[in-house]
């Protein structure tokens, strides 16, 4: 249950980046989370509501895009998405999948903000 620490890290990072847009309101925070990142989306959403309370991110929506695990198979030369996390094998030829190219991501992709237009 480390989603609370993760949520707090996201709030810190977004607050820091959003500071470049004074007065802007953050509407949405979009994440890219690999299937092997050990983050449960439901827990993260639950923690999000608590963590953003009283911060400039209050009311913002968290959008989580889950990325499947992709392996590169040296024997058959192909990349492929693993069908499940129960068996790390190349989906094309069944050889053990030891070279993972995607699946551990835990990053903020982008944020959507409403900017206040300066009055002339």
């Amino acid at each position, binding site marked *: 249950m480390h989603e609370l620490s*993760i949520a707090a890290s996201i709030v810190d990072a977004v607050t820091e980046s959003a500071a470049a847009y004074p007065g802007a309101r953050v509407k949405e925070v979009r994440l890219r989370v690999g299937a092997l990142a050990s983050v449960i989306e439901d827990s993260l959403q639950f923690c999000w509501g608590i963590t953003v309370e009283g911060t400039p991110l209050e009311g913002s929506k968290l959008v989580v895009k889950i990325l499947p695990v992709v392996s590169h198979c040296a024997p058959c030369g192909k990349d492929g998405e693993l069908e499940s*996390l129960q*068996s790390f094998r190349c989906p094309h030829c069944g050889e*053990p999948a030891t070279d993972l190219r995607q699946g551990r991501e835990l990053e903020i992709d982008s944020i959507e903000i409403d900017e206040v237009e300066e009055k002339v």
Partner: protein
Amino acid sequence: MTTRIVELRRGILKKNDELAAGLRARYGEAGVLVLNLVSSPGTGKTAFLEFTLRELRARGAKVAALVGDLETDNDARRLAASGAPVRQINTHGICHLDAEMIDKHLAGWEGVTLGGLDYLFIENVGNLVCPSSYDLGEKIRVALLSVTEGEDKPLKYPTLFNSADAAVITKMDIAEPCGFDRELALKNINEIRPGIRIFETSAKTGAGMDEWLGYLAEARGMSLSS
């Protein structure tokens, strides 16, 4: 009012990852092999580590350990009986160790400098989920599993087992009365982390420990020459 999408593309655990990279560089310069031991509570990490510290010291190696728990310094006191310097990290409710905790506890550790060590062991908080996200700068992450936990543990916790560099099965001395299916456990570990080195050990009888200690010496030699 205008709506704008701002690309950030930054790691959520960037702060931890940067600190961990700094630690990794320091370990490398000091020539110390650092291992991060991860398992469920009750797997026997501490007994396994007690044996390891005692044996490495008997072989003339300079070793130390950092041990993480939510509360108490019971494990540090147990491990200190080996004669090695041991420092307890109490996380007070946090379910994993992070790079900042390691950095803080390495600083001001009386009588211990990284340069004076051959091996540093980090015993993580007993948890098979959260520690997998937090890099501590270690060279080797060890996932431990005891014969009492069920052969399907690697299938239930693939994110952790897949991130491990070595796997250790503990309490092999009671494998038979527990009805432990050795072949199935080895197969499951290999299914999640193909080709991983697996050690079948007992801290009680010392079974499998020679092979483990040999692996440590070999890994240290390789990290020094690389």
